[in-house]
């Protein structure tokens, strides 16, 4: 086959973000029981309602079974072998960035997310989360002038507990699924966003999640509330060091959009994926859901999933408000022995609701890439429409792709449209590009970007460029 040696060389291309920060951390003992849940809540000095929320979730989780319906195979997770709270040791109260451990700042610098006043990104506010805690959030004062709240969720629990109590768990109830219940019991930190009525958030907001320690899980929780006629664009990035063990990441993201509000949530997920033998890598079990509560509200998910050994993720929209809109644009790339089971759910409840799904799955190496999606039209969803397009691209002859679209309609006066395709990068296509002087690697990435164009067009500009580069990097040498 084509360039066998080249292939072997570049698959070994190191994961750029695989370093570990040597920092003193505070960890609690391994294992999970009611006392651990209480301990986490106590460490975070939480109000009673939140401790109750956690305990209730924990009780539910204990009665639940890990789901096995996804097209994923992985060794059983030992939940008693995980540390549920790990935080870098810092001064008790940090009043400014100057007091943050320089090692942490350096870490984020290395990841391309400078946090200090002099170097911080100018067009985007960043909340940086390191293992279980939020390290810093930039541009807070500037955002506050517009009434926008952007802080860690722990801080929101302290300063805006009314909002937390009102909305937490209203989109993804603790009993929603096994991993959501686990997260609800032990979540450590994450981001909180509140956009007041009529405000268009003056800059993009971004959270950057960094897993550093090898034996602790990461359970972050994000809550975004967009009041009437407000709008926000939120970006999420993630990386982790290379360990030969698997690390569990089980996050919950809840979005709420009121009348005429719009939330755009973009993710570039680049957790460590394990090596070419499938050793190590993140187990990524994530529940993301948005509720279009208000009339004409809109929630748009766009995701570029390139990392993790296992991805189990279905960012969804509950379309309650009349004429509300849900969107899902996804590129999922798997290589080597990665497995991804990802897609979306569009639940049309209100009348004249609209949803669009565009999913592009790329499988290379020996990976398995599945799209799983549900489109449901409820009894009141009269005049509602859905359009779905699911395309798969296979690279090499050992990868596989699946598509599992579920359609449930209880409303005859609604439209559902589904298109699907599968293609393979052929030797002839590669040869054609090469015979025009285009390098092998560039030829592959040109074809992959071409395949993903519809989705990249939906990403914020700087993200789209990053995604393009990331895909090229991940695919280097995967065609053999």
């Amino acid at each position, binding site marked *: 086959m*084509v360039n066998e040696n080249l292939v072997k060389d570049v698959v070994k291309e190191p994961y750029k973000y695989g370093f570990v920060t040597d920092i003193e951390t505070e960890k609690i003992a391994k294992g999970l029981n009611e006392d651990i849940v209480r301990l986490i809540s106590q460490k975070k000095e939480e109000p009673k309602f939140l401790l109750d929320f956690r305990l209730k979730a924990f009780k539910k989780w204990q009665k639940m079974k890990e789901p096995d319906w996804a097209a994923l195979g992985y060794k059983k997770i030992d939940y008693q072998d995980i540390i549920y709270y790990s935080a870098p040791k810092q001064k008790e109260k940090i009043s400014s960035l100057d007091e943050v451990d320089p090692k942490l700042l350096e870490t984020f610098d290395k990841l391309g997310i400078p946090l200090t006043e002099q170097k911080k990104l100018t067009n985007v506010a960043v909340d940086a989360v390191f293992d279980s805690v939020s390290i810093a959030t930039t541009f807070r004062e500037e955002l506050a002038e517009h009434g926008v709240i952007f802080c860690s969720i722990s801080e929101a629990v302290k300063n805006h507990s009314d909002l937390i109590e009102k909305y937490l768990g209203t989109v993804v109830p603790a009993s929603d699924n096994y991993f959501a219940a686990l997260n609800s019991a032990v979540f450590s930190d994450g981001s909180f966003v509140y956009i007041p009525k009529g405000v268009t958030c003056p800059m993009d907001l971004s959270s950057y999640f960094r897993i550093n320690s090898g034996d602790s899980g990461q359970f972050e929780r994000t809550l975004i509330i967009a009041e009437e006629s407000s709008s926000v664009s939120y970006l999420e990035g993630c990386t982790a060091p290379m360990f030969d063990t698997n690390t569990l990441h089980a996050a919950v993201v809840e979005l709420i959009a009121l009348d005429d509000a719009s939330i755009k949530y973009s993710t570039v997920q680049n957790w460590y994926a394990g090596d070419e033998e499938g050793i190590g890598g993140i187990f990524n079990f994530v529940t993301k859901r948005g509720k279009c509560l208000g009339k004409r509200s809109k929630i748009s998910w766009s995701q570029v999933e390139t990392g993790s050994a296992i991805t189990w993720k279905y960012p969804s929209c509950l379309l309650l408000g009349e004429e509300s809109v849900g969107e899902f644009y996804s590129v999922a790339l798997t290589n080597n022995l990665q497995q991804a089971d990802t897609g979306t759910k569009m639940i049309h409840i209100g009348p004249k609701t609209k949803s669009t799904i565009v999913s592009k799955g790329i499988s290379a190496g020996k990976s398995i890439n599945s799209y799983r999606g549900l489109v449901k039209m409820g009894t009141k969803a009269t005049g509602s429409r859905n359009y779905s397009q699911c395309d798969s691209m296979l690279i090499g002859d050992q990868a596989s792709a699946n598509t599992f679209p579920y359609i449930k309609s209880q409303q005859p006066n609604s439209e559902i449209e589904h298109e699907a395709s599968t293609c393979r990068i052929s030797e002839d296509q590669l040869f054609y590009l*090469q015979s025009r*002087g285009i*390098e092998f690697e*560039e030829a592959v990435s040109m074809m992959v970007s071409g395949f993903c164009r519809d989705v990249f067009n939906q990403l914020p500009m700087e993200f789209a460029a990053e995604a393009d580069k990331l895909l090229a990097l991940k695919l280097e040498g995967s065609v053999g």
Partner: protein
Amino acid sequence: MKESDPILEVENLSASTDNLPILKGVSLTVYPGEIHAIMGRNGCGKSTLSKIIAGHPSYNITNGDIKFLGENINSLEPEDRAQSGIFLGFQYPIEIPGVSNLEFLRVSTNARRKFLNKEELDTFDFEELVKEKLEIVKMDHAFLSRSVNQGFSGGEKKRNEILQMALLEPKIAILDETDSGLDIDALRIVASGIKKISNAQTGIILITHYQRLLDEIKPNYVHVMSDGQIIKTGDSNLALKLEEKGYEWTDNFIKET
């Protein structure tokens, strides 16, 4: 390297795919300014020869050499051959969904320019260059914004090939049945395009079944291939004779040899 040195030397070349011998000792030398035509029945190895010269990975050279500008290129990657000035016009140009024709042409042109130590062109400068070249093949600007060859008619695909040749300015162009599937007008456009692009420093190999292309572009040499070998070489009259008598006539040559 003198100007009179050969551009391409194929020496006693044998090649196979999946252990099946396709070429069985082909020799061919092309000097600057020469036009060679290769004719022969389907399956005689004409297309294979062109693909092997361009470096297609599906074929193994089992014997012999390919030299380009005096250098052996047997194990050179296809992209390196292209950058150094070998151009293959495809019989069936490949469709590449999602990749814009303009971007493809620009990346490809820049790869060749980089090799020639010429400045690479940005989007604006490239637009200027491509506009000029579009004239040669009478193509509409709208072709540039479409995906590479996707949804192109047969004639459009072939003109797109000649457009690429015009942009890459190769030392040698091997045009594999560029005339097949073209109507009379398109054939004229393609033929006049090829003539405009070629000059006293370039070599051309035309693989064809039909005299009508050779009426437009008169070859210096005509080679007849059969069963992986060149069995007869002559001047342009050989093609006329073939047109008249058909390939059956050439079967006798095989018996003779």
